[in-house]
């Protein structure tokens, strides 16, 4: 199944695209923890992210003891280090449900990130900028 990219505002016009918004690949993700389910969380596919990262407020609401998880320090380009906390939760996305290690961090600038460990290790992803807006496709990797 193909999913359209979603538009996000930019605080200034991009000098290359000449647009004041950016197209980003996003999926609705449900997080489950001990039979409690989140609302659908709009989450960005980020091939440069080592882990899946979600705002810790979501973990709090699910009853996850966020700060008791193993600490994971991470950073983006040109910014300071942030510490998140690792927990194994169940994800449902694109009609697939699976267990994944998720880093929950307070005060991050996004709702959720789907990164290499926990997401791309389970899916073949194809990003297609042929149509406008762009779209992407993910296929679950079948392992024995």
């Amino acid at each position: 199944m193909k999913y359209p990219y979603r538009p996000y505002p930019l605080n200034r016009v991009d000098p290359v695209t000449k647009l004041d918004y950016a197209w980003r690949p996003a999926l609705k993700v449900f997080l489950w923890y001990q039979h409690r389910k989140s609302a659908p969380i709009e989450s960005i596919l980020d091939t440069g992210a080592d882990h899946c990262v979600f705002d810790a407020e979501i973990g709090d609401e699910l009853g996850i003891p966020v700060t008791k998880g193993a600490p994971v320090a991470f950073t983006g380009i040109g910014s300071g280090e942030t510490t998140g906390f690792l927990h194994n939760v169940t994800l449902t996305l694109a009609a697939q449900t699976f267990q994944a290690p998720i880093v929950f961090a307070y005060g991050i600038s996004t709702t959720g990130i789907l990164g290499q460990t926990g997401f791309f290790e389970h899916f073949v992803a194809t990003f297609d900028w042929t149509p406008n807006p762009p779209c992407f496709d993910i296929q679950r990797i079948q392992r024995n």
Partner: protein
Amino acid sequence: MMSAEERVRILREAKPNSWIAFSEDESKVVAYGDHYSEVVRAAESAGEKEPVIVKIPETWASKIFQYAP
């Protein structure tokens, strides 16, 4: 689903560091809140069973490595 222009306008005008809930079909906004729990409850109170939740960042800067704080 609303137009890209409408969605961008709504996200841009939302309060920084807050949360927003769209209807399941993403045709309209159903709730705003300062916290995830608040926006989910407000959306449910508005009759939306599966609101799509988006966090509004401090700034809408271009992203390189999304999780940069």
